[in-house]
């Protein structure tokens, strides 16, 4: 066992000497390899962090949301429908929600106007999200005016700015009183944007949804599970596409590695011939070259991963921000929370190290079988 380990150490020693003798080439390989790991790792870490964060934030989202559909479009829900729904067995609580979008030409941003069910602001007052406060420079006590549906001006005094911590859920919210809401949009009493229901037994959500669909065939029902599942997979789609795009890079890298491993110069071939002539065996050369690949891919993996960790969780993933931020004027200052597990690391390892090893194994073997007697010919 001791001999085995010392032999490995000796071969590693030789490998390193030989790597150092071709510094430039090997360094280039290491840099490219690390960059690829970095890109893949950043994408994986970032989207996974978003996914988990969404799952935690939305775990208490409404169990059931019911929308009324007219001509395939979302329409206002009348009070009468609510009364009907209340009779569905299993549903313990149901009420209409009032919300909508409001474009603010001054900030050139879209706000989400909402009427809270509990503790709504006084008439004429508004509770605003941190994003609105930032975009308009509005503090508690300041006044904000908007054009209502009929062209009249409605003025709200800021009662409170929602704390920064919950920005990811509340950044663009503009919470108002029900009367103010109806005046702003001209929606008659007895009409709601949609409805939210609670179900007694969580196992019966599906059943209740079926009953609602039967009772009100013109409605669209969104389950909390569906929302969670949507967010679980919302990033999968393009994450996968990104990966497919990066596959090109991985492939190019694999070709580069293959090229480097197979394009042995006459000098390197002679060296391997010498090693074999002085007493190394094909297996020793293979082992030595495997050490080379192992050191290379392990260092590239560690470097790439650690840089990606810094990039995503310390710098806020500036490389991906433009995609997520898009053209939005208001954007929650969002620093992803790290959720990392062995699963992602294993995925990353397979996606990066496997192509490298696969690309180099045949060239390495070709080098290793060089005849030892060629140095004497």
């Amino acid at each position, binding site marked *: 066992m*001791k*001999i*085995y*380990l*010392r*032999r490995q*150490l*000796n*071969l590693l*020693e*030789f490998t390193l*000497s030989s790597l150092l*003798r071709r510094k430039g080439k090997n360094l280039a390989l290491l840099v490219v390899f690390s960059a690829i790991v970095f890109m893949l790792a950043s994408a994986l870490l970032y989207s996974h962090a978003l996914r988990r964060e969404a799952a935690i934030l939305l775990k208490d989202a409404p169990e059931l949301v019911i929308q009324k559909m007219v001509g395939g479009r979302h329409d206002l829900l009348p009070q009468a429908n609510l009364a009907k729904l209340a009779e569905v067995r299993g549903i313990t609580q149901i009420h209409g929600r009032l919300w909508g979008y409001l474009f603010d030409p001054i900030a050139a941003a879209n706000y989400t106007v909402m009427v809270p069910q509990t503790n709504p602001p006084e008439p004429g007052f508004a509770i605003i999200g941190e994003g609105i406060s930032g975009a308009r420079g509005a503090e508690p006590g300041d006044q904000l005016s908007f054009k209502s549906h009929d062209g009249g001006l409605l003025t709200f005094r800021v009662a409170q700015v929602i704390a920064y911590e919950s920005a990811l859920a509340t950044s663009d919210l503009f919470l108002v009183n029900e009367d103010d809401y109806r005046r702003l949009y001209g929606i008659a009493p007895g009409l709601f944007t949609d409805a939210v229901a609670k179900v007694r037994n969580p196992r019966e959500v599906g059943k209740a949804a079926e009953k609602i669909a039967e009772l009100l065939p013109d409605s669209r029902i969104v389950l909390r599970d569906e929302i969670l599942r949507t967010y679980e997979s919302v990033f999968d789609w393009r994450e996968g596409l990104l990966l497919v795009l990066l596959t090109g890079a991985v492939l190019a890298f694999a070709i580069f590695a293959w090229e480097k491993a197979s394009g042995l110069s006459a*000098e390197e071939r*002679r*060296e391997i011939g*010498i*090693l074999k*002539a*002085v*007493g*190394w*065996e*094909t*297996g*020793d050369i293979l082992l030595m070259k495997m050490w080379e690949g192992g050191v290379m891919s392990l260092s590239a993996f560690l470097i790439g991963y650690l840089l990606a960790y810094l990039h995503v969780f310390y710098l806020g993933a500036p490389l991906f921000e433009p995609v997520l931020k898009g053209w939005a004027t208001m954007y929650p200052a969002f620093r992803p929370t790290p959720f990392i597990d062995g699963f992602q690391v294993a995925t990353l390892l397979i996606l990066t190290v496997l192509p490298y090893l696969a690309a180099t194994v045949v060239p390495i073997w070709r080098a290793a079988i060089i*005849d*030892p*007697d060629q*140095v*004497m*010919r």
Partner: protein
Amino acid sequence: MIELSEVRKAYNQGKPNEFWALRGIDLRLSLKAVTVFMGPSGSGKTTLLTMIGGLARPTSGRVRLMERDISSLPEKFLTDIRRRTFGFVFQSFNLLKGMTALENVMIPAYPLGLPHEALRKRALEMLDLLGMAAKAESKAEWLSGGEAQRVAIARALINDPDVIIADEPTANLDGQLAEQFLEIMAELKARGKTLLMTSHDPRIRKAAVVDGIVWMQDGQIASSD
């Protein structure tokens, strides 16, 4: 005792440029002696040394080393016997460039799994034995021809082999260095080593240290004495 029977070796077998370098060699070589293979170039002397030294397997025929048939061993086992039995000194020395003399000497022992420190000490002893201790940390490409050869000899000795095989050892050396080489050979013979070498060099043929000469011609043995 090294014994060869009916040894043949073909290169590029089955191809248009097929070439038989050895055409049936029967030979017995005694140990603890110096044997020189002589003959025109292309006569198969070097190929014969690679067969004896286990660098390549004969296409047919048998090579026996101390009563053991080594000609049909797989590479793994052949190499294991080879590196404990033979040390090689090549015509062009074949040191690895970019590595120090010391590292070059240590290389054959790496796969044996010796502790690095012990190995280093041993390599330094070998260099010292050949008067090269001062150059231990010099890179191989900075050594002169004679120095390079002595490093190559130190490398051949690191695994303490019984047999030293040298291919045209004096071809790249001038007169004085060739003399020194012969002195080293005499010293090794005195230590009980078996020496096998090929040569064109008349200085070697006439040297007192040589016990036997094998003359070769067209892949066959012409005469031996």
